[in-house]
């Protein structure tokens, strides 16, 4: 159903202690308090979460898909940035 006057909020949920919040979706709500409630009602019905963040969708600044080549492709050839490029001495054990 269309709700043009009601702002959109992005929802982030932390599933358990020690893990970081992850984006799970969005809700419509008139303000922050109602957005937290809506996020709880929509995204934590099966015990998914211990903590919720809601952020106004229009507060998120996103990269432009048209800039993809400039932004992301130059890293493809720099394999030495991956830690797997280096040999780990036996004495170090598991990293």
């Amino acid at each position: 159903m269309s709700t043009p006057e009601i702002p959109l909020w992005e929802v982030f949920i932390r599933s358990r202690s020690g893990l970081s919040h992850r984006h799970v979706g969005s809700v419509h709500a008139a303000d922050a308090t109602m957005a937290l409630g809506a996020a709880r009602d929509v995204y934590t019905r099966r015990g998914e979460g211990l903590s919720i963040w809601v952020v106004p969708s229009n507060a998120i600044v996103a990269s432009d898909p048209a800039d993809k080549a400039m932004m992301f492709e130059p890293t493809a050839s720099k394999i030495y940035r991956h830690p797997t490029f280096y040999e780990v001495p036996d004495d170090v054990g598991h990293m």
Partner: protein
Amino acid sequence: MTTTSIAVRETPLVLFLLGRADDALVLGHRLSEWTGHAPMLEEELALANLGLDLIGQARGLYALAAEAEGAGHSEDDFAYFRDERAFRNVLLVELPRGDFALTMARQFLYAAAIDPWWRACMAGPHAGLAEIAAKAEKETAYHVRHSAEWLIRLGDGTAESHARAQAAIDLLWPYTGELFDPVDPALAPTPDRAAWLSAVDAVLARATLTRPADGWMQRGGRGGRHTEHLGHLLAEMQSVARAHPGAVW
């Protein structure tokens, strides 16, 4: 109706438990009526969540009533095979769902009474009830928050939403007295009307709504004397179970 209703062995404890269970079941059913009709998807899920909490509470209370009655009746027998006069819910919960303002106003008036009552029951004389209360009070605490936040926004919203919220409070007020009818202290605490009033006043003030004067209070539900609305609700709620008695999923 193709099947006969059950006859309940009505001791004071059984009647008390059935009354509280019927409150939760009937209000839960009223909330379920919003499924497919809510103003937005988020609220549709919220209303269904509230309704499912209440129906879960009703199940626990019916199980306790069955144990107290000792006649081999099940939760389903109590929910689906009693007639209107055997239901002991307060009249407040059986009134039609009305508009969204009425649904939220009723939810708030009910939850603000029942949430502290559940907490009181946790230290009450009945161990089984205390166990249900420990789970239920976390659910109803959220019901209070959700319905209060909506009532505040409806009351302090547009002229239209304010008028609807005030009309809902005015219509419901005479039905709130029954929530506080004295309970035998040997069974459970009586809900605290003074505490409820101060909680209600705080929310109504933020909602810029006016608390109606206490006048004539409607009563009868605890004695099985209902409004004309309960019969229709039960006819819909019970029709499948009565058409197919003993059917299982």
